[in-house]
């Protein structure tokens, strides 16, 4: 039963039907909710300032909406007023959610560490996943309260016309989805921080620019692109997505752009934040890798599929540009993952190994478990095919599209994108190898990550400086070849108008990165094996010593028993006289 709610957990249903089991799950969830969530709700209920903050925000937003509506109602038609207030309200609400949500969540775990209550929670045996979910629910409930309080103000918009009630409802749904992501983001940061203030400041420092970037790119910029696809969706306003759902024509693009892509853009980051939180809440010797590796495997697969599908859905004229765009996105994702896995432990801890042995873990589970070499292998297995497939599909479409297939189509050579994709994939091999190498030699994840970042930054920038100086002296485009070690040199490999030496140096450098990457990987693997072997030797030595002591103890007890047997007469252990 739940002591906090006083509810008794219902017995499991006799029926094994999915519906009954689902009902039972819901009943359990209602009777025995997450204990951390309930405790946080109780604490929040005693926070006297919350109603005042909610009232102030609602009044502020109402005044702005009233002002916008009042000013515009004299100048434009009613439907335009509705659209303007709709955009104003949901823009404000977006920023509110994007800034307040992470700040609320940032306080969640950091405050436990700061208040020295964290260890008490950890020792209750609650799993990190349960703690993470409880904290998430608490922060999400808080930000949800803000959104619900604002709902009546937001509902005013469709009274003016220009937007439909369904669009307003969808906008609110998205507001909750943004809140989910914001809270998950804040929680992931909070899980790493020891100070509440630090967590809040860092979260705000990150969430403000990120939210502005997302708003700018996903708002006005995307609305223009979507307007080209579906003219009914207005061009320019930032809050176009709810209208696209109602006004867009259903088809392949609708499914890709409004179902598939948003799902990926919500699920993958939310999952990543969740795994980050769980990993940070777990002990150093617990399995902190499996969750993140599962996320990597699934997200790599999904991103590859999205890239390939998107290449097939864009016009042939744009395939080369979109192919490069997809490869750039893949490279950014790959670099990010390389930094994430640069913190991987060299091998599984005793605790993890014991757990594997107890549960009879198979090869796949062990492969996804902690381990530097395994992580590097997973990265290569997960993303090298993605680079290859994206490059191949783009090149194939360029090659296979006949000149007469569409008006104004100019056939393009696939050489550029092949060179670009090859260079990107080769450099990725090097990044993975360098990450593994640095981690194998570093005693902690942070130095490895810092060194990797410095190395990558130097490789990215220094060749261009040298090339610029060389170019100024030699006054020749061939000096560009000097910049070939920089990953940005891949862009120089696009097109067909550069001197041959540039392309040759690009191929040469690609080969060199692959060789270097695999060499570093081999060295890292050898070092890891040495460390693991040394650890196991130490462990075996310790176990042997303990076993010897146990044996000596047993022998002493046995000898004692034997020595006492003839003298004692009566066997021991029986019940004595009363």
């Amino acid at each position, binding site marked *: 039963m*739940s002591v906090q709610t006083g509810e008794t957990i219902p017995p499991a249903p006799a029926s094994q039907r999915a519906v009954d089991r689902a009902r039972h799950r819901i009943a359990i969830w209602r009777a025995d909710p997450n204990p951390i969530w*309930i405790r946080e709700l109780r604490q929040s209920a005693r926070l006297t300032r919350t109603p005042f903050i909610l009232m102030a925000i609602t009044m502020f937003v109402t005044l702005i909406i009233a002002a916008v509506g009042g000013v515009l109602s004299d100048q434009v038609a009613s439907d335009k007023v509705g659209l303007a207030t709709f955009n104003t309200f949901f823009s404000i609400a977006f920023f509110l959610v994007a800034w307040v949500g992470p700040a609320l969540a940032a306080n969640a775990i950091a405050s436990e560490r700061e208040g020295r*209550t964290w260890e*008490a929670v950890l*020792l209750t045996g609650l799993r990190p996943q349960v703690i993470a979910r409880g904290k998430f629910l608490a922060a999400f409930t808080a930000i949800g309260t803000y959104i619900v309080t604002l709902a009546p103000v937001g509902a005013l918009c469709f009274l003016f016309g220009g937007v439909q009630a369904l669009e307003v409802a969808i906008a609110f749904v998205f507001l909750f989805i943004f809140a989910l992501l914001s809270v998950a983001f804040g929680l992931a940061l909070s899980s790493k921080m020891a100070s509440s203030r630090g967590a809040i400041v860092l979260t705000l420092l990150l969430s403000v620019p990120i939210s502005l970037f997302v708003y700018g790119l996903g708002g006005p910029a995307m609305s223009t692109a979507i307007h080209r696809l579906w003219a009914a969706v207005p061009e320019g306003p930032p809050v176009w997505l709810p209208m696209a759902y109602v006004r867009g024509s259903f088809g392949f693009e609708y499914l890709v752009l409004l179902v598939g892509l948003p799902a990926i853009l919500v699920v993958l980051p939310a999952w990543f934040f969740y795994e980050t939180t769980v990993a940070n809440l777990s*002990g150093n*010797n617990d399995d902190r890798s499996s969750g993140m590796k599962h996320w990597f495997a699934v997200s790599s697969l999904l991103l590859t599929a999205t890239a390939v599908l998107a290449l097939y859905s864009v016009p042939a004229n744009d395939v080369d540009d979109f192919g490069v765009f997809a490869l750039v996105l893949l490279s950014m994702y790959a670099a990010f993952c390389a930094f994430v896995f640069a913190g991987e432990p060299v091998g599984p*801890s005793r605790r993890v190994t014991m757990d594997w042995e107890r549960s009879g873990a198979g090869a796949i589970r062990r492969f996804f478990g902690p381990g530097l070499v395994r992580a590097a292998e997973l990265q290569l297995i997960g993303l090298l095919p993605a680079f290859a497939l994206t490059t191949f599909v783009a090149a194939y479409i360029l090659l296979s599209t006949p000149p007469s297939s569409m008006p104004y189509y100019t056939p393009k050579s696939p050489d550029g994108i092949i060179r670009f994709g090859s260079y990107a994939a080769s450099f990725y091999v090097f990044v993975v190898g360098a990450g593994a190498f640095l981690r194998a030699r570093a005693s902690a994840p942070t130095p490895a990550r810092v060194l990797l970042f410095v190395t990558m930054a130097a490789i990215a920038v220094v060749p261009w400086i040298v090339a610029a100086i060389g170019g100024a002296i030699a006054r020749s485009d061939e000096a560009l070849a000097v910049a070939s070690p920089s990953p940005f040199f891949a862009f120089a490999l696009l097109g067909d108008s550069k001197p041959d030496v540039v392309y040759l140096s690009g191929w040469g450098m690609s080969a060199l990165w692959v060789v270097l990457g695999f060499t570093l990987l081999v060295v890292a693997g050898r070092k890891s094996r040495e460390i693991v072997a*040394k650890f196991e030797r130490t462990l075996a030595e310790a176990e042997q010593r303990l076993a010897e002591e146990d044996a000596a103890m047993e022998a*002493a007890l046995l000898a004692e028993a034997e020595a006492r047997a003839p003298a004692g007469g009566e066997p021991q252990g029986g019940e004595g006289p009363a």
Partner: protein
Amino acid sequence: MSAEQAPELGVSFASQASYEPPVSLGPPALRVRHLWHRFGHFDVLRDVCFEVPQGEIFGFIGPNGAGKTTTIRIMATLLEPMAGRVEVDGIDVTVDPEAVRRVIGYMPDHAGVYERVTVREYLEFFADAFRVPSATVVDAVLELTDLGPLSDKLVATMSKGQKQRLQLARILLHDPKVLILDEPASDLDPRARIEMRNLLLELRSLGKTILLSSHILTELSDVCTSVGILERGRILVCGPIGEIGARLEAQRAAQAIGHAPPAAQAELVRGAQLQPGQVHPAQLQSGQAHPAQLQSGQVHPAQLHPGAVAGAPLQAQAPQPSIAVRRRVKLKILGQPEYVASLLRGGPGVVDIELSYGMAVVTIDGPEARIADMVAHLVRNNVGILGVEQERNELERIFLEVTRGEMQ
């Protein structure tokens, strides 16, 4: 320990001090064997070995930075040992930390509490977190810790002593066998300390094993059945206070007649490693073991015949000099102290008598029963006894004698 930590460890088991497993009947509640831990390039714990039998209150003492909290955090599964083994109720903390968490209650030093909940709500949360099956447990714990009248009080408004009791209530919710308390009486006023001490004694009577770390030695000597002193990451001495004191006394005596050089004194004590609840064979030979220890099974049969048993554990103990437990007893008396002195002088075990107005301080060798005999003897001779009190400063004396005041 993770694999990557191995190269920095530098542990050589061949070089470690010999650890003699104790002779004990039941499985120990806590068992620490060859424990090493390192932060960076610094060995915080070096081959720490000790055991705490079931039902003991074990005082874990050491100067600041000695490694007490690290040892405790390893026992509490919050840190994984780099080498060695720690078992709580027979469960290895490395192998099955979840199971260990079910049998321990850990109260950290200066732990925090949730302020904006009531006492009952606080305990209800932890009851849920521990998956306690019944709400009545909260009531029982409230009653045990005398927090019942405060159950609807906001935690924020409680005093430090009350919050400390609340912490203790929290760790009792899941009925753990072993309580690990890191400085539970720090920052408490005298009344709260007394309350805490009484609570610990009550918990011991309920069968809990308690490991208690504290700097306040007089407080520990009041409640602890045995102690372990840690300095610079090494256990210097471990065992019942009286026995350690007696051992030191014996070594001083040996040193006085040239059997042991002064520098080796602490090493001798380190080598002793008497385990809590154990009685040294020498005591038994001289008939100084308390009968209660024999009845309660704290004395292993092997100890009754140390010479008859071969094997490492007892061989190490055999050459120790014959020792006796020495006590200082304050007697508040009616009448002439000189008369009392004349009655006691030359009596069994009486070593020294100091007299002051209305009081005699008697130094006596032997079991506690001798105190009773001494008092009975005085009463038979018409001496009015107002009070009998054993001097409690023995632990301080031991601590100062075995530690060198070195910081890590």
